[in-house]
């Protein structure tokens, strides 16, 4: 009897089945493939592992990947917020077209984006030619990588903010205005705190995506050792040299950093939500 009483009744049926299904699929799709990185790395031993992931070229690639992804994510946060604002708040002809355009970086093969950038910013390209006059180099420089990553990460920010912004009741802003707040004060003190979690999620996703981005970047970065080699490229070049263990060592570090970042983000959001819910 006690056994049955212990079992908590839930209105939603099928918890056991659906949970089992979820765990199985997450395992099959995410955990099992990723764990291969661990198993590939373990036979390597500790010293060679440290040696592989702290080689100057590898460290430089980590630095480059993280710094460019960070810049791109910050930029996306601002521009993405603005775009989401325009798409939610205003009505104008061609709005749906613009809305669809936002998703393009999601859908486009990244290599296509890479080629576009390479031709646009090349010293004879439309923009590259003009920029070259001012001695601004996009191709073969970290700036180019940031440009590519901005493009790739942009929809993440827009698409996470959009629904939250749509949810904000007009009355909230009207209330702030009636209390004497300017548009800017209303935005800064009321709207921004409201949008912040979504903004954080969106830009973290853009950041995480930026670290992993390969296709569009290698076309534009020039891949100069110590200067414009991104971390995923290091993995690629190690694989080219049949250094599978070395490649998975680099990959493991990337994986750990990305995962701990997402974990941190979740913690921050949890803490944010706790207070006022």
């Amino acid at each position, binding site marked *: 009897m006690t056994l049955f009483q212990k079992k908590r009744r839930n209105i939603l049926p099928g918890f056991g089945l659906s949970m089992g299904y979820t765990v199985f699929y997450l395992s099959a799709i995410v955990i099992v493939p990723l764990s291969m990185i661990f198993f590939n790395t373990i036979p390597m031993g500790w010293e060679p592992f440290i040696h592989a992931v702290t080689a100057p070229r590898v460290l430089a690639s980590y630095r480059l990947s993280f710094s460019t992804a960070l810049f791109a994510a910050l930029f996306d946060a601002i521009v993405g917020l603005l775009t989401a604002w325009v798409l939610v708040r205003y009505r104008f002809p061609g709005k749906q077209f613009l809305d669809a355009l936002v998703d393009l970086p999601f859908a486009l093969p990244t290599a296509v984006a890479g080629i576009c950038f390479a031709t646009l910013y090349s010293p004879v390209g439309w923009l590259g030619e003009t920029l070259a006059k001012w001695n601004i180099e996009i191709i073969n420089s970290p700036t180019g990588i940031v440009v590519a990553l901005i493009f790739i990460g942009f929809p993440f920010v827009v698409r996470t903010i959009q629904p939250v912004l749509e949810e904000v009741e007009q009355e909230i802003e009207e209330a702030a205005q009636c209390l004497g707040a300017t548009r800017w004060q209303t935005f800064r003190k009321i709207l921004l*705190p409201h949008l912040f979690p979504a903004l954080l999620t969106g830009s973290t996703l853009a950041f995480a995506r930026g670290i992993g981005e390969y296709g569009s970047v290698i076309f534009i970065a020039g891949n100069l050792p110590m200067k414009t080699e991104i971390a995923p490229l290091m993995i690629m070049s190690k694989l080219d040299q049949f250094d599978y263990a070395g490649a998975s060592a680099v990959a493991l570090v990337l994986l750990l950093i990305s995962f701990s970042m997402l974990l941190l983000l979740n913690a921050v959001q949890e803490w944010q939500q706790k207070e006022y819910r």
Partner: protein
Amino acid sequence: MSIELQNITKKFTGYTALDNINLNVASGELVALLGPSGCGKTTLLRIIAGLELPDSGKIILENKDTTNLPPRKKNVGFVFQHYALFRRLTVFENVAFGLKVLPMRERPSRSAIQERVEHLLKLVQMDWAIKRYPSQLSGGQRQRVALARALAVNPKVLLLDEPFSALDAKVRQELRRWLRKLHDEIHVTSIFVTHDQEEALELADRIVVINKGRIEQQGTPQEVYDHPVNAFVYNFLGNVNVFHGRIKNGKVSLGTHHVDAPDELKNTEERASQAFVRPHEIGISRIRSAESDLAGTIQEVRIMGGQIGLNLACEGFEHPIDAEIPRELYLNLQLAKGEKVFVSLNRVRVFTGDYEI
């Protein structure tokens, strides 16, 4: 702080929300804008607050034309139907918001803000919740906080848009009385919008009845209730029995029954008329006391608390008549479904014209 509305007109695509509204509100008055939903009352309130611009007309607050001022410069307090509290701010921060956004030189000191917020929260009996978030409060409590927030900036005028309609009946009544008391204490000129005639009658100094973008009647609750100027107002202010008939030779027909026409309609030519009788203005007895009494049968008995509702089928009347009698009378007469009674229409109001209800 007096409010003067002159010829306010507002059209939305396809219909006229407000049609040439003129209204004066004296300083310290508590006025109810009463009307069915969609009659334009909320639009009018939003226009006064500056949240909406009129197509034409003027809004004058204390002899100053404020028609084109943005809401933040109007210095009106606005209380929304769904509270519109800032979810991410505590109760304290919510109430302090209006003070904290003031320009640097007008902003009170930190301690003055603290003091003012505490005072206001005490006034609305919410001082215990100063550190809470809106989501931790009930609807009635949220609306009190919203009121304190609106009062924090010392508004010239307090505007309330159906402030109690999202609350349940018991809380609604409690808050209503409490607001009346509060208004008697602080005397800020207030306008509230409601579709609930009981709320308007109980709370307001003056009622403005609005229908289809026009003011039908304004006056004290007593005046409006006792002397409605037309069928709409009469009908809107409470339950009624409507009798469609004709007026002829100084007599009004209700079914096969006739009553004397009111003095002002004694001499009109024959025309359609409507007679109204409120359920509580109908007398019920076991014996015929006057020739005009109607013979009826009780079809249905509804227990409504202190009052008993009767649904009566009367001879010569197409539709059943609703009556309300005190519980004691009901018990004394030992009434029940199917019993025969005599019905007297004690107070009949007659309006002419083909007013649609």
